[in-house]
């Protein structure tokens, strides 16, 4: 795999133990969301217990990764040198259909054509040999 010289690797996430299953699934190109079998709440980011009913025996369930853009911004000056080769790029809050919100980038798009409410689907990008992040791209 050749990497464009101008696009350097993203900073890797600092993984906490509660969220390790999420990152392990992303590595396998699966999107999982924490779910409480007792009260039915989905929550993201993962925590050691359900913020609705305090149940500490939670599961991760697989999501098809469809959602809508809740809000976004186009970043035109890179604050972090790792993103200098990516400007302009879209930083967005994506509301998955399960009702949880992700911070991510909208990729494979014209940044100036992005709109709130636009439908998107998850995709995956390897950051390094250990970490894969979840990105989103517009769907027709």
């Amino acid at each position, binding site marked *: 795999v050749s990497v464009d010289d101008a696009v350097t690797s*993203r*900073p*890797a*996430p*600092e*993984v*906490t133990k509660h*969220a390790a299953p999420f990152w392990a699934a992303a590595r396998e190109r699966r999107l999982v969301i924490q779910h409480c079998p007792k009260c039915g709440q989905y929550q993201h*980011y993962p925590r050691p217990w359900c913020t609705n009913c305090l149940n500490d025996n939670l599961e991760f369930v697989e999501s098809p990764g469809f959602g809508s853009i*809740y*809000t*976004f*911004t*186009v*970043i*035109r*000056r*890179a*604050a*972090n040198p*790792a*993103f200098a080769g*990516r400007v302009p*790029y879209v*930083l*967005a*809050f994506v509301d998955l259909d399960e009702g949880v*919100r*992700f*911070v*991510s*980038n909208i990729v494979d798009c014209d940044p100036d054509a992005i709109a*709130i*409410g636009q439908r998107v689907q998850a995709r995956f990008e390897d*950051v390094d040999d250990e*970490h894969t*992040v979840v990105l989103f791209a517009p769907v027709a």
Partner: protein
Amino acid sequence: VTSITARPAIAGIAEVPPMRDPGDATAMDLVLEVARDAMLDAGLTPKDLDGLLLAPNFAGAPVTVSSMVSDYLTVRPAYCDVVDLGGATAAGMVWRAATAIEAGACSAVLCILAEAPDRRPGARSASWEGLPGAQWDRSFGPMGANSGYALAAMRHTYEFGTTAQQRAKVAVDQRTNACANPAAQFYDRPITIDDVLASPLVCDPLHLLEIVMPCSGATAFVVARADIARDAPHPAVSVRGFGEQTTHSSLASLPDVTRTGIIRSAGHAFETAGLTPADVDLLSLYDCYTITVIITLEDAGFCAKGDGGPFVADHDLTYKGDLPCNTHGGQLSYGQAGLAGGASHVTEAVVQLRGAAGDRQVADCGLAFVNGNGGILSEQCSLVLERIDT
């Protein structure tokens, strides 16, 4: 029922105004300078103080920051704490100090906030394990607060049709105020709405002139029992109402990014004051970005939700206007000295209520609403401050 005059009051204030280059001054240098000036302004000495509240970010401060600063100042506080509310820290200090005084814990509390570059090697590299942003945000290239407020502004535009011209009006009126304040960073540089719109887009929809400029500087103030404040050299400014709410660290955790903790903090402030927004003579609203002022006006009840854009377009926010707001220039034009930036909204309210604002004095200014905002709309603290006529 406690009478107005018996309420704790702000008895002294001091500032090291925002500066781009503090030279070799450390944060501790600024702390000592501004603490002395605040005591002089209040007519008090260290032995008169029995409370100390500090902002958390003194460069290189160890965990026992309260005793360290107490030692330097030779204050022996019966009440001390570090208040950790980002840009809402100063407002948070005011009501904490007033409440401690009303509870009888102490009688005069010195509050200090300072910002200077930390020049120690590696000083800025530390991150705290478990900070949500380090796991869930940073791989996607956020631009700190800029992108956070841009995300809120974009949603505000989507829901309510708020325009760039309306947001720019906030920056322009505040610049007019700064041009009447020699201590402001942008004292002699008036701008127009076109200037704001022509400045570079940094994070859509925010332009460069809608964004604060980081500075160094410091603020201190003394909150004192009513009788002590009454005997101080300047008119006392009583803490008539207060409210606070912290809602999130990551903006993604706020379900509706256009509806903030200000609804609670300002609601409680007006309720405890027994007043409404219509009673206010001066607004002093945390303004890290233009959108922050618009959201604050809505959530504090000065206009209906979503009407903030037309509201700022229809009102004159200058010191000469029908709705004086951020008469020192706001942080956008005065400068943002770290956490002391949020303190400038408290000190400007006190200066105006004292009638000591000079060229930018608001006529008949008796009641001020102050809002402090931290993080990405994360921490909110609201105050209703009132001049005591003796």
